[in-house]
């Protein structure tokens, strides 16, 4: 006579898992295919490319290393939050989940500081096949030239260049080090960007569980533990993706 949906909290007698746990794993399976397709793309483009820079030539490895540590730490606090629910320690749960959210936000802030300089830094390709890196000092559409300040040479890092005029007719293309710069940067921004969106998703879910959702800690702790476990599985997956993104993009 009951219209209740079964196995929301208690595990199914045969499969041994609750609905939500099976559901979240299926969702993660689809995420594997999503990121898998992007990794596949990355390999294909890199192998087919004439010039693909090493990640450490172009990207900020120290910041990314710090971010790796931050994300791993957030995974630990996440799993500690789950353990605290299981041990019925509400205060500790709040602390650990709160730390998880804070670490996630730290990751995003560091990411922002990693992204931003890329958009200020430019490269100009000339029709004669050469190119130069530096900063756009002036780019007025009215003028038939741009003012461009080259970066200091690697050999003479303290010698600064003056801004120089480059006629537009000599320029084949110029671009910031944003996604449009090259397939390397396109891949970098797309993959880390999509990963960043997943981080934001995790922050939203965890913040909800930290405040309004936490009511269930008192009303139905078993079910709440299930929710934290699912949120945790998602969060560890996001960490796991980063563990592969980090060497692929930055270290190789």
């Amino acid at each position: 006579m009951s219209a209740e949906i079964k196995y929301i909290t208690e595990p199914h007698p045969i499969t041994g898992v609750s609905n939500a746990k099976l559901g979240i794993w299926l969702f993660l399976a689809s995420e594997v295919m999503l990121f898998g397709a992007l990794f596949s793309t990355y390999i294909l483009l890199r192998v087919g490319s004439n010039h693909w820079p090493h990640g450490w030539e172009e990207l900020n490895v120290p910041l990314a290393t710090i971010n790796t540590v931050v994300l791993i730490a957030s995974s630990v606090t996440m799993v500690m939050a789950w353990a605290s629910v299981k041990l019925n320690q509400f205060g500790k749960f709040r602390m650990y989940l709160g730390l998880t959210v804070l670490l996630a936000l730290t990751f995003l802030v560091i990411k922002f500081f990693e992204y931003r300089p890329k958009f200020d830094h430019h490269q100009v390709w000339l029709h004669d096949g050469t190119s130069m890196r530096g900063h756009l000092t002036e780019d007025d559409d009215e003028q038939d030239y741009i003012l461009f300040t080259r970066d200091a040479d690697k050999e003479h890092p303290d010698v600064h260049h003056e801004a120089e005029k480059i006629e537009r007719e000599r320029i084949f293309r110029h671009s910031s080090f944003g996604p449009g710069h090259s397939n390397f940067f396109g891949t970098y921004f797309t993959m880390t960007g999509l990963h960043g969106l997943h981080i934001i998703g995790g922050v939203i879910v965890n913040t909800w569980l930290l405040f309004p959702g936490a009511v269930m800690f008192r009303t139905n702790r078993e079910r709440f533990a299930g929710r934290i476990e699912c949120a945790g599985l998602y969060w560890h997956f996001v960490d796991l993706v980063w563990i592969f993104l980090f060497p692929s993009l930055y270290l190789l």
Partner: protein
Amino acid sequence: MSHDDHHHGHSHGSAHAHGDHHHELGFWQKYVFSVDHKVIGIQYAVTALVFLFFGFTLMMLMRYQLAYPKGTFPSFFAKIFGAANMPGGTMLPEFYNQLGAMHGTIMVFLGVVPLAVGGFGNFVLPLQIGAPDMAFPRLNMASYWVFFVGGVVMLFSFFVTGGAAQSGWTSYPPLSNIAPFGQTLWLIGMVFLITSSLLGSVNFIVTTVQLRAEGLSFFRLPFFVWAQFVTAFLLLLAFPPLEAAGVLQLMDRVAGTSFFMPEGLVVGNRMVEVAGEGNPLLWQHLFWFLAHPEVYVLILPAMGIVGEVIAINTRKPLWGYRLVVYSVIFLGFMSFIVWAHHMFMTGMGTTMSAFFQTTTMIISIPSVIILTAFVISLFGASIRYTVPMMFALAFLPMFAIGGLTGLPLGLTAADIHLHDTYYVIGHFHYVVAPGTLMGLFAGVYHWFPKATGRKMNDMLGKLHFWGTLIFLNGAFLPMFWIGMAGVSRRLYDQTKYFHGDAVQDLTVLSSWSVWLLGIAQIPFIINFFASMRVGKKVSDNPWAATTLEWAAPSPPPHGNFAVVPVVYRGPYEYSVPGAASDFSPQFVAKA
């Protein structure tokens, strides 16, 4: 990610056999933002039927251009579509391309899949496994509304500058990369549709695994449930690569990347200023990694419906049930490793071609097994020629034509001639239109009594059946000859070419069949809406069927079953020797 049981789900245990005893629910919660799988199923089905009809009208317009390329459209159309699309009644090629691309997109992603999976899957699957609802009802509702938004974005794209997407439903770059803004909306719409499918497939799999009634083991599942179960896995694992590809193309269009842009691409006599070094074939790989499994997403639910209808109307068990189930699983698995047979003509090496040619030949085997099992099921039966059964019977030869005409396309040598001609159009439409749609219509007539408590009219149904069968064949059969004559499927005016002009009569025949096919749907539309109100009232189990959905009241109330069903036997125990009647329902204990 939250998995609440809906807060009002527990109050309906009472034996009321009426669906409308939901005192506590307002109109919006009951019919619009419902979490009831049946309401969501019907929402999906009706939305999908509307989209199917809309996608079909796009094609009716295209067929006019194809049949009478030198003539002009009646002034009525010229007025509707305006000077931007149809100046002086002449359809612009750009508009023709929009209609083509959107016809494919709408029929596949907004029509057939939502009807087959979202509609039938949602409505029937929980009932057939004896569950009170889907495992995640709110996720289910989200899935519908995300789908709806995706559909609205797609429709909206017709009204932006430059019009809707016009690079084919496959959206091959670099053409799609440099197409007008409508393509961006197409990509955004696709991201919504894919997300919706993912939510749905998670729900289907969890529901099937976790919520089966007591005694309902996997090999007691109706074939329809198996078909939906395999389909859900295809959606779950094949769609994400297309989502990735969609994101990459979106980046190409919006952020100036060049994932799919080759170097030195010249458009309108100007070199495109992008970094280059991209790979247009990468899109094709990612697209077909989804889109081949997608073909089975289109066909499997229809096969499931046909299996049900045949077993019920032959009053015999489905022949080779286990064999058919194994075939479906094998089919689903193989569908992931045949994708590059769509790409034989891209300059792929012979080793790869040989590999995909082989897998393509292998995948035809389980399809043939399933079809053969269905045909053998008919042998020696005293068939009830009900309307759903007529559609199910028509499915068999139609799908057979679709399948068999696919073999020459899967062989690399024959594909050189047939690739991208009308032959291809004929082939896959036989699979999807006379094939899948016949199955889906069978499903509509078959489960209509469960959804409404009333039967659809037989006379109108038969009219609909014969009209549909004749004109579908009239529309698609000529295409094999047009294709073998070498006419490209992309042509706006085939009479400009000698080989196209030679078969123009067949194109006219096809066009007239398409319009008559449209008229043949009128009895269905009338029947569908009128029967809801004035159809003959029927019992809970009007077809004398064995599966669990017929144990529930018609229409089933929220929570579905008055008594939680227990399953005692396999799904197709018809005409069991010694039994009291010619059907032994799964939900009735042995006497």
